[in-house]
């Protein structure tokens, strides 16, 4: 049964230094508030996992939380490159970052294998792709029935996964809708799962029967954080803050500007600040 707890407690009691952790979200529903809380609590040596590390991973890497990054596309969506990540990879600032790089198909299959309790994922991929040369976790096996060469990657089984979702009911069942991404697989693949939600409702009895629901017994802790995905969006609640993504490109380009921005907007801020950030983006 999921516990309802404040976000600082959920992060403190589920994340440890050295953990492998995914803050998942595929452009939609990015758990920014949870990641900011992890930054405030100053975790170290994390293996950060995510298909699409974007602004919030740029922030965690720039603040020195990450020892390793497992990913398939590291960019500021629609804007360009991640400048704190580049500084880490190209210049070792603030320290060296180990990277394990995959394709989206590989990461998606690897989470699914994790959720399915398998040791590895098998798929038709990486044909002719050079990532197979530089990443020792990409191997090829022969299909025992047809002889076809297929790619294999280890299952992803993070110590803890953080996601953001629309709502929970009083029991702690969680609804995710819109672009559902990889979140269900990530939650089911992880040892512990923390969900931030926009709101809590009495029950889900009036919902469509095929919606993506995570039963309360698959979730460790739930924290209510309205606006918690900003500058990403929550379908049905508020729109994506595209201007913030555009602004980030300039902030992240400069080490001092970055540090000042993080001090003001993350280190000196609280989970409650997110509600105000999405006020102007709420659906009419």
């Amino acid at each position, binding site marked *: 049964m999921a516990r309802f707890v404040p976000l600082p407690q959920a992060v403190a009691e589920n994340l440890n230094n050295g953990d492998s952790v995914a803050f998942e979200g595929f*452009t939609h529903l990015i758990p920014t508030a949870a990641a900011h809380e992890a930054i405030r609590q100053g975790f170290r040596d994390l293996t950060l996992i995510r298909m699409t590390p974007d602004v919030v991973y740029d922030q965690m890497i720039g603040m020195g939380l990450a020892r390793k990054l497992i990913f*398939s596309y590291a960019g500021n969506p629609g804007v360009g490159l991640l400048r704190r990540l580049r500084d880490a990879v190209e210049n070792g600032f603030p320290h060296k970052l180990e990277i394990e790089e995959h394709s*989206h198909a590989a990461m998606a299959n690897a989470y699914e294998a994790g959720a399915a309790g398998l040791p590895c994922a098998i798929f038709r*991929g990486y044909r*002719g792709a*050079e990532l197979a040369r530089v990443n020792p976790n990409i191997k090829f096996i022969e299909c025992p029935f047809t002889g076809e060469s297929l790619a294999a990657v280890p299952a992803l089984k993070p110590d803890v996964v953080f996601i953001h979702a629309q709502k929970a009911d009083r029991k702690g069942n969680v609804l995710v809708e819109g672009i559902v991404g*990889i979140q269900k697989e990530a939650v089911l693949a992880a040892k512990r799962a923390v969900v931030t939600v926009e709101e809590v409702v009495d029950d889900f009895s009036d919902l469509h029967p095929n919606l993506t629901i995570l039963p309360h017994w698959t979730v460790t802790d739930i924290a209510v954080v309205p606006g918690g995905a900003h500058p990403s969006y929550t379908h049905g609640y508020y729109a994506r803050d595209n201007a913030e993504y555009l602004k980030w490109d300039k902030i992240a380009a400069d080490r001092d500007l970055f540090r000042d921005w993080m001090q003001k907007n993350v280190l000196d801020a609280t989970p409650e600040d997110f509600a105000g950030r999405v006020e102007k983006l709420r659906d009419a």
Partner: protein
Amino acid sequence: MMSKPEFTPNEMMTIAASRALKNDDVCFVGIGAPSAACNIARLTHAPDITLIYESGTIGTAPDVLPLSIGDGELCDTALTTVPVPEMFRYWLQGGRITIGFLGAAQIDKYGNINTTVIGDYDSPRTRLPGGGGAPEIATSSQEVYITLAQSKRGMVEKIDFYTSFGHGDGGDHRERLGIDTKGPTLLVTDLAIWKPDPVTKEFTVVSLHPGVTRDQVQETCGWTVTFADGVEETPPPTELELATLRDLKARTEAAHKTA
């Protein structure tokens, strides 16, 4: 030409690329230039085309171009939205995609694409975003179209990293690797339309956009350009194509400013 053409090279690129798409195509859309071309096709000659973005949106019909592959607009206007693993396993790997439409940071004459690093992988000069969906889009789509604006930095003799496999070293390289899809069959730039030579698989200029010279194509390309016998001139944009593209861009700009 009777008068100076009243369109930009980029507009010509988007419109020429859009014309290659058919009404019954199922197109996996890359962000950026491909996204504009695919939506112009949908808004002009191919109203029933199925556009798929890797965020899981199938049959999407956005009113404005998305800034990212996961904008809410894509989900709101889609026939259905599926989880990301399903997108890559059933729809792409399952062979349902007729056209994978990709952009590129760096491309060679065989349509191999680099979006990973400039320089050495372990100590890169520039760390680019990486492959995302492209390595498998390039090999599991029935065909691949590529679009990018020409530059010597972008079109190079040898790419720094083989993110997405095109025709490799040319010839039958795909078949030798057991890849049973056609790979890159079309390259549309701001200056020309290119198709692979049937035997060598080297991209060859088959059509120059109006007013473009062979020298201009060569000056902005890092490899020695081969021109097909009987190079044609790309028909200029029609009024409808141009108006549709400009309306879409204007709507997009307005939407992203206020959002």
